[in-house]
């Protein structure tokens, strides 16, 4: 197996949606305590669906590529659905990860769950 899937290479060489959404409806930042990789996601939500997503990341190339892929993947999703994406789903979406890159899927799941939570708590906040 090659070290990187074609999708990951595409995304770390030509990352999509780099930066921060201005005035985001939700955002999340997670860091892997072992490898030090960090991912930051911020999104705009409209009509209960994500309509814009941006990322920043620090870490290995696979982590960067994965984060960029996430920003395209989650468009159109309901925030609550993010929490149901698991490592297997992420690994499949990015075109495969080597054992040494499996932390990228974990990090992605963590940031998606944090994002879902942030959406939920802000929605909660708005409702109350």
């Amino acid at each position, binding site marked *: 197996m090659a*070290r990187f899937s074609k999708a990951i*290479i595409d995304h770390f060489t030509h990352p999509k949606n780099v930066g921060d959404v201005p005035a985001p409806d939700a955002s999340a930042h997670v860091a892997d305590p072992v490898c030090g990789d960090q991912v930051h996601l911020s999104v705009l939500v409209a009509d209960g669906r994500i309509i814009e997503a941006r990322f920043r990341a*620090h870490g290995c190339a696979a982590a960067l590529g994965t984060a960029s892929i996430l920003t395209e993947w989650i468009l159109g999703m309901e925030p609550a659905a993010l929490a149901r994406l698991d490592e297997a789903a992420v690994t499949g979406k990015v075109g495969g990860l080597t054992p040494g890159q499996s932390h990228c899927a974990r990090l992605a799941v963590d940031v998606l769950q944090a994002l879902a939570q942030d959406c939920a708590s802000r929605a909660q906040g708005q409702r109350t």
Partner: protein
Amino acid sequence: MTYPPIDDGPVAGRRLYFDNNATTPLLPAVSDAMYEAVTTFGNPSSAHLYGEAAAALLDKARVSVAALLGCRPEQVVFNSGGSEGASSVIVGTGLRHVSEAGHIITSAVEHPAVLRACEFLRELGFELSVLPVDGAGRVDPPALQRALRRDSRLVSIMHANNETGALQPVDALSGIACEAGVAFHCDAVQTAGKEHIVVAEGFVTISAHKFHGPKGVGALEVRTEAPLQKLVFGGEQEHDRRAGTENLLGIVGLGAAADAARARLGDPDQQSRRRAIGSALREGLSSITGAVVNSPAEDCLPETVNVSFQGLRGDTIVDVLSARGIAVSTGSACHSAHLEPSHVLLAMGLSADLARGAIRFSCSCLTTRSEVDEVVAVTEHTVRQLYTTSPGCD
């Protein structure tokens, strides 16, 4: 030079190889010599025409390597490369003194071939002194003088560092060891073929694939009366110093690479071209925002430029450059998701973060000026993009 294409490279057409300290491509003269030798298949130890023809190739290569090293042909012991060369001297010293053990001296910036072998001797009961280095990565000769003990068995210090290119004062260091009557070993894997190796007395390890010869073949120069313990037993090949049917094709390639290297060393035009290419690379990289050059400005192989980009990770830059068709390396082997900072850079006093941001660019005699310009431009673009992506930047 255009390098041979590699399958599935995502950046069509671009192939820039700047990882020549890891290994180098064969020169055409080397592969030609090997092609020609394929039909001379005899065993050099055989007492018939096939054996004699093979032995003649072996002798010729030995003369070529001796000429490159400035020693006598019978001082050249062919082996399987730099790791075997270093291990044979160090582990051999361990075996010779296994009952009484003793003391071994090395430096903090050695290649794992030397460090791991020395650590193994420590497991066998030897004491190990690891000499520190200054900010340029250099051992101070008086420090060696102070470290020497009556039971010191071996001093092993490299010539040029593989990560930074920094040259050690091995002439002075070998002189100090030699005066104290202690055997000296110099890992000259990164200098052979690039610089003259000036070791007063001692064992010198070289490896063909670092100067356009084939991988898996090298030589130990025995420029000393110090005894050499065999590690590979069997026949009486290599003047009874290293057994095993000789890697004839590899040795022919090593000989041809030595001939070519000697020609380059003696050619002032090639030497000034080499320095000009190295300077252009160094200057180009150092002008990139965030760059800190780790290779010393003086007494350094011009073809090696080790540079850290503050706040970025070296392995990430390597992977992105690789996807763009540019081969460089972090300089330190990275075996896990957890990137170990280079022991060489840490020994020079770099912070772990800066050390993790290091990448090594290394040229060869085949590298051109336009390749240097392109690699600097792509690196600049890549580094800027990574800064933009970083959580802390804008």
